[in-house]
């Protein structure tokens, strides 16, 4: 099994006080962490790649821990999440799909409960490619106030033989959420949807 070779981590946190409306009592925070790793399958077609998902699990947990820390250290404050991957040009989109299991597992492990599917995005790109990580409520996908996205990119990654793996978390709703729908207070919490 290939080892996970990490070149760099980038962590970004946004503290949002307002977006033209009334300032939030407690500012919303949202953040993303990206790891730039070597793509062990770059440059050739490899049929059997699924084993790499297990290799990525420790990295996923490390990233989730780092991100929670960057967001203030209290996992109980995290309400939304998402994940994504940017595969360098010598790799396949399918290599980005290797992140679904370890990325989702890591956040669920640390956030507790978290029954909702972790929304995700993936793409192939070059240096500086940005990606929009979709965000939904971690316990109920249909909570409308928590539909969001966080854009992230790294100016010097991914190189052709690299993959950028991303986890994202938010402290709550959009700062001026007011378009109705299922509210976080109405979550039943049975199926991860409502």
């Amino acid at each position, binding site marked *: 099994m290939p080892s996970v*070779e*990490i*070149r*760099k*981590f*980038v*962590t*970004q*946190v*946004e*503290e*949002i*006080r*307002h*977006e*033209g409306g009334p300032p939030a009592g407690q500012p919303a925070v949202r953040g993303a962490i990206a790891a730039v790793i070597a793509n062990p399958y770059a440059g050739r077609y490899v049929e059997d790649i699924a084993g790499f998902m297990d290799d990525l699990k420790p990295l996923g947990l490390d990233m989730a821990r780092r991100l929670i820390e*960057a967001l203030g250290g209290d996992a109980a404050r995290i309400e939304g999440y998402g994940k994504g991957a940017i595969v360098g040009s010598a790799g396949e989109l399918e290599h980005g799909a290797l992140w679904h299991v370890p990325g989702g597992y890591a956040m669920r492990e640390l956030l507790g409960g978290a029954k909702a599917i972790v929304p995700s995005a993936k793409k192939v790109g070059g240096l*500086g490619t*940005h990606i929009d990580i979709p965000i939904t409520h971690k316990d109920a996908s249909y909570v409308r106030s928590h539909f969001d996205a966080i*854009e992230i990119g790294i*100016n010097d990654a991914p190189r052709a033989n690299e993959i950028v793996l991303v986890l994202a978390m938010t402290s709550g709703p959009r700062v001026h959420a007011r378009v109705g729908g299922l509210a976080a207070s109405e979550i039943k919490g049975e199926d991860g949807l409502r």
Partner: protein
Amino acid sequence: MSTSIRKIVTVVEETQVEGGRSVSPPTRRAAAIAVIENPFAGQYVENLDVLIAIGEELGGLLGERAVAALGIPGDSVESYGKAACVGAEGELEHAAAILHPKLGAPFRKVLGKGAALIPSSKKRGGPGTPFDIPLGHKDAAYVRSHFDGMEVRVNDAPRDNEIVVAVAVTDSGRPHPRVGGLTKGEIKGEDGLR
């Protein structure tokens, strides 16, 4: 606080591998970025004292945020820099008013010291414009291993009537520096240059 801050973004980069070789300990750098309203957008105003005062407030606030994101004591910071990106309806001089007269003193206070000029850059741009914060050693501008730059961007800023203001700090120079020049071990610390 007289500054109208819409959001604050922090970014931390940790480089573990560069040029295929391990960087031990990893090099780390952080930027703290504020998105503020430009009180003079769309009009020519002769006296820029309001922006100068905003710069003074942001020097302390962003300095503290950047050092906290790096997670080291202020006096352990090795290099620093500052930059601003003015929205479409502002002047470059607005960025100058924030960056140059009074931002430096409170920023340096967070670091304990800082004899060297704080390298800077400025530009005008729209939402998502990337801009580079130049970096130099905080006590001796000629330390060659610490000449660097950190690219940052905020996807939804600056709007036309906003200014994005950023400072950056590091715990190190470039990974694997090997182009000679003054080293940090040779700093005399008398004039901020050598």
